């Protein structure tokens, strides 16, 4: 296990360097650079100064070497948009996205998996079909549409804040009230992110349970008179977890990509919104920094999924199934 983890972390490091370097180079090579943010008719002296500030007056290779050497010392350069160091911005944004992602993933897990067990272990009936229908709707709605719909409903009803991470009133409040305020702002973006993932979990879990209950060891348990609830929860569910664990890593990727849109629409100050704005502004070092952090999160998600798989399925642990 230790060797496995070491190998995966080494792979993570290579991936982070590759992804962030690719992001840096693609941003550099794509048409228009950060100086275009000064407007079409900015004085040339100002343009030259800004290009030099972001090393755009150097060759691509020279800029990359400079950036890598600085990044090795944990200096990721300055952001044009925010006029401050990239490192601090990414740390703050990652913390905000992590909070949102953990809540969304928890929500998706706690709704998607039980509902999947329910629909997968029942044949026919109105309720399972209703759940299946709702899942199909959620699966077919992209996060952009979900977040816009939720913001619209929130705006019309006032049931939830329409966006942001804290309310205006949170400027002068105690820490506990601040936490409550953040919690009040979480449902909208968390739901927008969680709904398609919950639907994915539900569909996968349902299919997996339906497959497992046809297995001989389940039929044997039925023959032994094991009660239905125990049969499903203790035997079938555990055996069916493999497919769910396998998509957990993908779910983290989905959360990250979904956060691009959801955080932008819901004005959540997270990594997705930061990267989106950085890309639009060709904010080269901020793009590279965000890509590095995104790569790191994705790889860690993959590791987490593997660990969960090993924990959930003894056959994987024992090397029977890979």
């Amino acid at each position, binding site marked *: 296990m230790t060797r496995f983890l070491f190998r995966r972390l080494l792979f993570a490091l290579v991936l982070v360097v590759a992804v962030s370097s690719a992001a840096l180079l693609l941003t550099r090579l794509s048409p228009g650079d950060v100086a275009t943010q000064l*407007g079409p008719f900015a004085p040339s002296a100002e343009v030259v100064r800004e290009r030099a500030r972001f090393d755009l007056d150097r060759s691509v290779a020279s800029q990359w070497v400079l950036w890598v050497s600085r990044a090795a010392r944990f200096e990721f350069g300055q952001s044009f*948009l925010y006029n401050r160091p990239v490192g601090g911005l990414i740390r703050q944004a990652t913390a*905000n996205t992590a909070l949102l992602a953990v809540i969304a993933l928890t929500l998706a897990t706690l709704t998607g998996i039980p509902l999947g067990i329910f629909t997968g272990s029942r044949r026919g009936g109105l309720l399972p079909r*209703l759940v299946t229908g709702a899942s199909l709707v959620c699966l077919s709605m992209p996060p952009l549409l979900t977040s816009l719909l939720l913001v619209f409903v929130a705006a019309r009803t006032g049931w939830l804040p*329409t966006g942001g991470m804290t309310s205006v009133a949170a400027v002068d409040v105690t820490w506990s009230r601040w936490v409550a305020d953040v919690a009040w702002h979480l449902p909208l973006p968390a739901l927008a992110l969680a709904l398609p993932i919950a639907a994915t979990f539900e569909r996968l879990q349902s299919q997996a349970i339906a497959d497992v209950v046809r297995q001989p060891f389940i039929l044997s348990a039925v023959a032994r008179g094991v009660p239905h609830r125990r049969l499903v929860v203790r035997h079938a569910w555990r055996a069916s977890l493999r497919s769910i664990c396998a998509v957990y890593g993908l779910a983290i990727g989905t959360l990250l990509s979904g956060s691009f849109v959801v955080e*932008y629409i819901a*004005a959540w100050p997270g990594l997705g919104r930061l990267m989106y704005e950085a890309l639009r502004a060709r904010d080269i070092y901020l793009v590279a920094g965000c890509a590095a952090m995104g790569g790191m999160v994705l790889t860690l998600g993959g590791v987490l999924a593997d660990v969960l798989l090993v924990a959930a399925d003894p056959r994987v642990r024992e090397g029977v199934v890979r």
Partner: protein
Amino acid sequence: MRISRFLGILVTAGLMAAGYAAWRSAVPSRPASGLAPQRGGQLVGSTRSELRSYNRLVSREQNTEILSLLTQGRLVRINRSTFELEPWLAESWEASADGRTYTMHLRKGVFWSDGVPFTSDDVLFSLKASYDPRAGSVVVSQLTIGGQPITATAPDSSTVVFTYPAASGPGLRLLDNLTILPKHKLEAALANGMFRSAWDSSVAPADIVGTGPFVVREYQPGQRIVLDRNPRYWRKAPNGDALPYLDRIVLEIVPDQNAELLRLQSGAIDLTQSELRPEDYVAARRSEEQGDLSLLELGVGTDADAFWFCQKPEVKRNDPRFAFVQKPEFRQAISYAVDREQFAEEVFLGAAVPIWGPITPGNRPWFWSEVPRYRHDEDRARALLKSIGLEDRNGNGVVEDARGTEARFTIVTQRGIGWYEHGTAFLRESAARIGIAFDVAPIENGALIQRLLSCDYDAMYFRPLATDLDPAGNLDMWLSSGSGHFWNLEEKTPATEWERRIDTLMLEQASTIDPDRRKAIFNEAQTVFAENLPVLYFAAPRLYYAHRTRVLGIVPSVLRPPALWNADMLSVTGP
């Protein structure tokens, strides 16, 4: 599967019904018009981008401009509603007969927000910082006359004498560009070359002091900027009340304009920093009918969408189409082909007025209604094309010259802007009727600017923003050598005779003091421009602005920010 699909439709319908019911259940607020301003309360606005700097002398970003209006002062200000010059930190002045010397008397009893008295030293310091090459000032071009700086002396702590290197048409209006900054806070930074970064957005707000109505309380990147009332603010209301009325202004950072509108409608924010898009007007009107929003017509915008061909001979010399693109008749033909009334109707949903030049009716002091016009006339357009040898010789619907070069071009425009897409589509259809073929290529903003700067395009459809309403402050567009002379950037010598003529006229009007004479000269420059049509303008949008009804005291402006330029007079009903 059929049942699942049916259930899916059922759930979707249920969601839509719930959304509709929720929308109908929203309780409208009461309009607050006619109420007297109240002291206290908090106004929540929005902004769509981050703050980069607190220092207006080194940054021209919109947020820096807004923060400058809210927290700093100028000696004089141009009223954004009337365009008149008003005394501000200077309460009076005298001008010499030759218009080159201005003696400004500073307002007494003005303090910086940290309690330090405001004096003439601060004015001299701000002017010095504007010209310091290490500071990288962005206002230096607005504060130079014929390439020479303005000089200033301070006979005493409340008097400043400005000496202009030459007579200037705008006169004291130039000083609206000079934000007065605190010498006691920034002198060391200027001395050691750190002025440019001294007031970056990462600086602690407590270090930002000003003479404006508000002080910065907090900046939370990605979330909001919070400003509190400046208790030392000098200005009083006409009835003697201390200003500002508001205790706090919060600017929520909402990058998406759709989300911004929804927040405005829901009451999460009170106002925005931009006018409504044409497509948002109906939704805002509905909210007004429900009593949630007040809808104001700001007037006709001062900037309009422009269409032009790259006319840089160095780049286009080998392009056979340049032979006819550079002829005014070709551009006039396109102008005749476009029905501007219909353009305003279709592109701006009727909320626009036809125009024939860069100065719109929104720029009241400088608009000239007698500028040459090109009424929609397709026969005349075809005749003009024929007069320069362009005819449809092979019957494919596109005109070509004697050598067979077709009048076929690609229009580059910015992607994602609705009225650009509609405008270029209208233009393509209009031009097709006279035999000119346009293909439209919407591209991302950064790529568009790069192409503009390198003249890597046939034609472009875009809205260049004027740097100043006064043409003397916008010479970078008018002069052939200007960095904003967008159809042929920074010409070494005027490429055409008519550009040389415009150069002469613009330099003359910029150095003329008599306002009537200036207007007459500028009218002539506009005429030369409209006759030669280096750039075609079709319609200027009427601007509408929406704010919550609880906000009082808004004096709308066609310039951005439409409401916060007058923030010290704003008030709200309720907390």
